[in-house]
């Protein structure tokens, strides 16, 4: 199994002020870069940066290619992932995506993972005029053409539904030829299988339990073997799941340091689905007040249930935050990871920077995890690779994958 860290660059508003101070965002960005550098030294395999727009407090990572470029300059081995690029052309023109991904791949020495997605909330897709009914179609068209742009000399041009452009040679080309490994954000089971049928990796943010993951993994590889029309020139058969992680010497200490940040993550994510008033909410303050009012009472449980988002993706993340599969002592986390390892998940991606979680606690957590938990899974990764090779026996398409 391989391990990565994921960043939203979450930036809660101050509890006692209406908006952020001048240094608040700069501090979060600087700390994230330190955490990435630390993870690289500790042997983590991946860092993924999300892309969201207008989702204040929840995600200030709106230009991940910039942060990833800074990370590339500070790191040696860690792979640099877009998790994900929002592909509807109204948000990111496919030619600009191809140029940016290729540039990052060049300056990082071929370390890019190209995660793709369609955009999520009405707040962000509506901000760019993308209709909900069109976003998956726009994703498919833009991603397919973006991959062609990376590999054709010149790109012959395209007349499509969501974008058109004349013949151009799109440069630079990525160092990883024909293109970096491709992923898609897959919060619903159907999207995991869509990934398989298109020969790309699934970033399965909707894997709530190892049991669900196991069923999905088997079906995913069955469909990979049957894949007839891959989206790109190479396929990336790989499955990744996301969990909130805070590792500390004892379970109690981990919960004390990590739980509130995870709960806030779920809370603010739910808020993004329908409640947001641009520029005027203080979601962090609302969260803290509700939490303080309910602490230690039966109402606390009711509050948690009442806040569950209706949207499936949002609900999965909300529950993930409350459950804390990877929040505990090394022994606790190790036990939980073994279940995912048994289910043949290739990569576990950890969300550590969230809410008001302290930078120092995150740095210590990454270090403890890397020393006490990671080694046994890294040592056994060859067994996963052997199993995966068996699953891929007879696959017709060339494979380009970092797992």
């Amino acid at each position, binding site marked *: 199994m391989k391990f990565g860290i994921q960043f939203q660059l979450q930036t809660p508003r101050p509890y006692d002020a209406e908006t952020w101070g001048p240094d608040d965002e700069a501090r979060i960005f600087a700390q994230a870069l330190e955490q990435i550098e630390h993870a690289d030294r500790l042997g983590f395999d991946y860092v993924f940066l999300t892309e969201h727009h207008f989702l204040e407090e929840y995600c200030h990572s709106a230009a991940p290619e910039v942060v990833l470029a800074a990370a590339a300059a500070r790191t040696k081995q860690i792979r640099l992932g877009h998790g994900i690029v929002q592909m509807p052309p109204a948000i990111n023109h496919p030619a600009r995506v191809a140029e940016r991904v290729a540039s990052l791949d060049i300056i990082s020495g071929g370390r890019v993972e190209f995660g793709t997605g369609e955009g999520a909330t009405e707040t962000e897709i509506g901000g760019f005029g993308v209709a*909900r*009914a069109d976003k*998956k*179609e726009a*994703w*498919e*068209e833009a991603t397919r053409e973006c991959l062609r742009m990376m590999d054709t000399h010149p790109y012959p041009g395209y007349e499509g539904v969501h974008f058109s452009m004349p013949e151009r040679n799109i440069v630079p080309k990525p160092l990883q030829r024909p293109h970096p490994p491709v992923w898609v954000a897959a919060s*619903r*089971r*159907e*999207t995991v*299988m*869509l990934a398989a*049928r*298109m020969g790309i990796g699934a970033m399965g943010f909707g894997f*709530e*339990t190892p*049991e*669900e993951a196991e*069923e999905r993994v088997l*079906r995913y590889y069955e469909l990979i073997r049957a894949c*007839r*029309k891959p989206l790109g020139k190479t396929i990336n058969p790989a499955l990744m799941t996301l969990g909130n992680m805070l590792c500390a010497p004892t379970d109690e200490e981990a919960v004390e340091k990590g739980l509130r940040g995870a709960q806030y993550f779920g809370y603010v994510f739910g808020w993004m689905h329908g409640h947001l008033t641009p520029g005027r909410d203080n979601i962090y303050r609302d969260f803290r007040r509700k939490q303080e009012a309910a602490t230690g009472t039966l109402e606390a449980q009711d509050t948690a249930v009442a806040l569950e988002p209706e949207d*499936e993706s949002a609900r999965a993340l909300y529950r993930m935050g409350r459950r804390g599969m990877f929040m505990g002592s090394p022994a606790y986390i190790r036990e939980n990871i073994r279940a995912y390892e048994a289910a043949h998940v290739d990569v576990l991606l950890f969300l550590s920077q969230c809410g008001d979680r302290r930078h120092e606690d995150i740095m210590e957590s990454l270090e403890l995890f890397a020393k006490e938990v990671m080694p046994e899974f890294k040592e056994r990764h060859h067994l996963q690779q052997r199993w995966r090779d068996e699953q891929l026996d007879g696959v017709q398409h060339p494979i380009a994958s970092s797992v």
Partner: protein
Amino acid sequence: MSDDARAILAEAERKLDDGDNTASVRLSAEAYVVLVRERPDLIFAPPSLGELKVDGGRQPGAGMPRAPWPDAQGVTVTFADDAAPEIALAKDRYTTSDAITYCEYVVDLMQLAERGG
């Protein structure tokens, strides 16, 4: 469970492989209707349930509740009170990703039914 839904779904997969996405989408919706008729307890309550009386609750041993029918991809299925279920296709043509989404949704539901969920 009858073989009807299974046969329709197999045809939906064939259409998907042939690149006839719109036909595949329609067949997946038809398979979904047959499945829901036979096993209304498998799904989250659709918009109008009428006589099916699905309570939308979690069945013991059934795992997590199913995600709702993905109507954002342009296909709605309405279970009217006293009429046959109605399938409405909002688009003239569907993409591969639309067709896969609907097909795999029904595959999952069928697997759940076969497991006795």
